[in-house]
């Protein structure tokens, strides 16, 4: 079974703290994604990675950075957390190319509250 795990289900941090959200997949997928989910806005792409050490900005990268040192792990970093980063964060992975289904597999999400 395909599995994507995230380090925390719930996280409470203070304004200005550095926050790390970790995501691990066990499917040997090349592509990994970080989304932010807010009511009425759906899921918006923050960053994605198509290979180790490779990263691309998504639609809302401001205030975030990412790290992918190993194929199975993709980290989202909030350098200095702010209250407007209170949200649900979802990690996903997929494989692309000839014959691929392009289905993305999601982690259970991390609900981050910044106070």
């Amino acid at each position, binding site marked *: 079974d395909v599995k994507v795990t995230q380090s925390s289900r719930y996280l409470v941090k203070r304004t200005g703290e550095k926050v790390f959200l970790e995501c691990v997949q066990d499917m040997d997928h090349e*592509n990994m*994604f970080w*989304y932010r989910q807010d009511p*009425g*806005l*759906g*899921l*918006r*792409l923050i960053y*994605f*990675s*198509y290979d180790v050490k490779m990263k*691309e900005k*998504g639609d809302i990268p401001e205030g975030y950075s990412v790290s992918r040192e190993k194929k199975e792990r993709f980290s989202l970093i909030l350098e200095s957390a702010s209250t407007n980063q209170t949200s*649900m964060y*979802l990690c*996903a992975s*997929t*494989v*692309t190319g000839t014959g*691929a*289904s*392009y*289905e*993305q597999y*999601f982690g*259970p*999400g991390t609900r981050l509250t910044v106070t």
Partner: protein
Amino acid sequence: AQTVTQSQPEMSVQEAETVTLSCTYDTSESNYYLFWYKQPPSRQMILVIRQEAYKQQNATENRFSVNFQKAAKSFSLKISDSQLGDTAMYFCAFMSPYNQGGKLIFGQGTELSVKP
């Protein structure tokens, strides 16, 4: 730019009845993929159904089927014989194979409540 629109923020249906969730999208490409994802209260996002744009036949997965109208850029989800376990947030998503990384573009979501 590619966009996905779900115009129904909330819907409800009685158990055992049929409900249709709407989705429209905008793209200039001819080859792409469309998805419906389900996010129940547990928050685990799972794939419900997938459609490839070059396939004329509408996709079906058990009680779930789609009405794919390529010219109208419409991709609705029909849930037959609704069950209490269908209560969830449903997201429509678009993917172009020409976009690097296989990234998805999501609609705003429709919250479906199935009532006993």
